[in-house]
């Protein structure tokens, strides 16, 4: 014990020890605080989960009945008398994630009847961007005219995610205003943006599609045009065919590839001659994509001949796509592959055909999932 007492005495005398001892105490304090934070957070989170579960169980039957169209709004409003406003707000906001179609309309009626839309308007002024984004998203789902009033301000938000949500919300109430505002955002390779742009165009109805076509036609920025073509593909807008036809002759490879892809996505067996001509494109990516799209759209003799010829292409991916496209066409395509695998003078065509015939025999169906080219 003597060494310990000496040690403590030494500690009391030496300033370095004193400092180190203080560091130790501070560290112990920090460890205890961090540990307490972890445990407190855990306990609070679990308590909150249990409470939410209780509320869900207690209200689910009435709320579901109302949302499914079997109950009346009065019975749903009665829930608000039984639980606190904040719980009701949480409950309904949670439903926004799952409700669709008619249920969403009924949810919106209930939400507005309880005056929660006003809370979202207030939330749209929050300094936290994700609160603003969530508020605009819900206001859009409500399809109320509130967005028309606050839409301009929302579209000027400093955060791009908020601007996108505002544009989506505006589109849901039939306005294409948002599309122009978010166009600079869309001028990026971000694939989310094409998805969002397609969604916004779809929500906006015919005006949205028309705006999308104008982006492809008039826009100078190639990035916006490229994204708009992707969005047209997602929207399957058949009215865009004349524009896509022009793009098949675009000097820019990327636009040609995207136009061919869009034609495949729209799925109308039109412009087959133009597509077949692209089988001779100088860029392999265009040829590969054309083979893929031709296989998806047509099984006529001209297509089969083009794909048979593509089996001998100098690029591996073109041959691969052509073989897969032939196998997807069905028996006629498989027959060509069989012939090529046995008789072709071209080694590459023979090899690729044989592989596809064998794989097709085993797997039954070969997906055209090749995105290279």
């Amino acid at each position, binding site marked *: 014990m003597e060494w310990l007492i000496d040690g403590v005495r030494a500690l009391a005398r030496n300033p370095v020890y004193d400092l180190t001892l203080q560091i130790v105490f501070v560290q112990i304090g920090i460890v205890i605080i961090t540990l307490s934070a972890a445990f407190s957070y855990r306990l609070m989170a679990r308590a909150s989960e249990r409470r939410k579960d209780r509320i869900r169980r207690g209200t689910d039957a009435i709320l579901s009945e109302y949302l499914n169209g079997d109950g009346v709004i009065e019975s749903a409003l009665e829930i608000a008398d039984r639980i606190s406003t904040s719980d009701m707000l949480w409950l309904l906001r949670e439903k926004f994630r799952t409700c669709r179609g008619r249920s969403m309309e009924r949810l919106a009626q209930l939400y507005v009847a309880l005056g929660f839309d006003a809370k979202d308007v207030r939330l749209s002024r929050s300094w936290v961007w994700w609160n603003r984004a969530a508020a605009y998203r819900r206001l859009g789902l409500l399809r109320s005219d509130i967005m028309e009033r606050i839409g301009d301000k929302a579209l000027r938000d400093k955060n791009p995610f908020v601007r996108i949500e505002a544009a989506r919300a505006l589109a849901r109430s039939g306005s294409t205003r948002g599309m122009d505002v978010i166009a600079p955002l869309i001028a990026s390779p971000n694939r989310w943006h094409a*998805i969002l742009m397609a969604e916004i165009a779809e929500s906006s109805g015919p005006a949205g599609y028309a705006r999308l076509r104008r982006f492809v036609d008039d826009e100078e920025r190639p990035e916006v045009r490229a994204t708009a073509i992707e969005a047209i*593909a997602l929207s399957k807008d058949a009215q865009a065919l004349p524009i896509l036809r022009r793009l098949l002759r675009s000097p820019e490879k990327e636009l040609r590839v995207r136009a061919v892809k869009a034609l495949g996505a729209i799925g109308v067996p039109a412009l087959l001659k133009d597509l077949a001509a692209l089988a001779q494109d100088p860029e392999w990516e265009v040829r590969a994509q054309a083979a893929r799209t031709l296989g998806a759209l047509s099984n006529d003799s001209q297509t089969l001949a083009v794909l048979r010829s593509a089996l001998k292409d100098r690029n591996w991916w073109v041959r691969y796509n052509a073989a897969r496209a032939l196998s997807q066409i069905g028996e006629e395509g498989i027959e060509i592959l069989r012939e090529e695998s046995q008789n072709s003078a071209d080694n590459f065509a023979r090899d690729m055909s044989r592989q596809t015939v064998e794989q097709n025999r*085993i797997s039954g169906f070969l997906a055209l999932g090749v995105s290279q080219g």
Partner: protein
Amino acid sequence: MLSDALILLNVFLLAYFVVMNLSYTTLLITSFVDIFRHKRRSDTFDTDVLLNSPMTLPVSVIAPAFNEERNIVQSVRALLNLTYTDYEVIVVNDGSTDHTLDRLKKAFGLEPVHAVFRRDLPTEQIITVYKAPGIDRLTVIDKVNGGKSDALNAGINFSQYPLFCSIDADTILNRDALLKVIVPFMEDPDRTVAAGGTVRVANGCTIENGVVTKVSLGDRILPLFQTVEYLRAFLFGRIGWNLLGGNLIISGAFGLFRKDAVVNVGGYSRETVGEDMELVVRLHRHFRKKRQPYRIVFVPDPICFTEVPENLSDLGRQRDRWQRGMMESLTTHAGMALNPRYGVVGLLAFPFHILFEMLAPFIELAGYVIVILSFTAGIIDTPFLILFFMVAVLYGVFLSIASILLEELSYSLYRSNLSLVWLSVYGFLENFGYRQLTLYWRLKGMVKFLFGAKSWGRIERRGFGAPQVEETP
């Protein structure tokens, strides 16, 4: 004279200790910032959009397998049931000497096919390629043994999609893991070249039909220590570097890569036992050197589970290999260190990894020796020795507890309250014995590296069921 030298060494050690801890604290703070930012962003977007969109990029999942007979069928079934739109699964049997291939043949009715593929990367000879009736997305490649890197390169040659996901055959991906790890590529497909997800410990978890149905800690001591380590490594180490743009590691157990970028740099290197880190460092080097914009990111929410060693000898071999792998990667590309041309990677990440990861075992050992010598020479006394030890231990404990807090605030996978207690206890206990053991294994790795050893060592796996023994070359 000796005493002066010892004093100088003590000052150096103290400075090293302070700078290292300050660096870790900075990483910890950036982790808290980044994890919240990431969580908020992922809450804002609906991944269902990705699931239903034809715009979602297709992925080739490559699983190299060497003597994985115990887990392989379950793992492949799990891979075939991922929640994702368009993907293929390529299992590369790297010359297994057990029944890995037979199990696959029997389970999926594999049939040999004539295969045409692009030889973008040189590999050992391909023996046979198999397809499964009715399962177009599954391809099994049987090849001559060439190591994990070689098997991955073979998988890349056979892959048909522009992105490939490398996973270990004994890794279980959460069903939505691909859907989450793809997000950086969707957001920025031109610049993103690699993305990694979080690896968690599978030991102790309940696994049914290749799906982790319950995440728990289990009752084995070594996996518990490693669980704390994995939390620390993934929740604050990698996330921290993410914000700074200096991530040097994408775990071999689960990483998504842009194929053209990997092929351009020559694929996985066969000359290292740490092929995952070496590839990432090479990608950094390639893009920085060419001054091309790129990003390599760590995404915390795609999660996979991996089985960790349960006995000391296996754990020792693994740590020894990790140490060698890191040393190989860092020394091969040593020219990047402190080179402004390589930006954050050269000026921050490289010096950090060299000083506080690669050389840490040596400096820690030197620290023990110098402290003992100083104590013997009367330069430091017992109270100071105890105090300094307490400071070091408490800082380690703080990092572990902070990682547990990060886990609670973000994903909270370990649902029972008791698991939180155990994690905290093991975060404390690891400083007494476990840490010193890993130090010993890492030192062994350092020595082996200096003598040019390349072996992966023998690994014993229990499997997701009963125990088994495997041999690796």
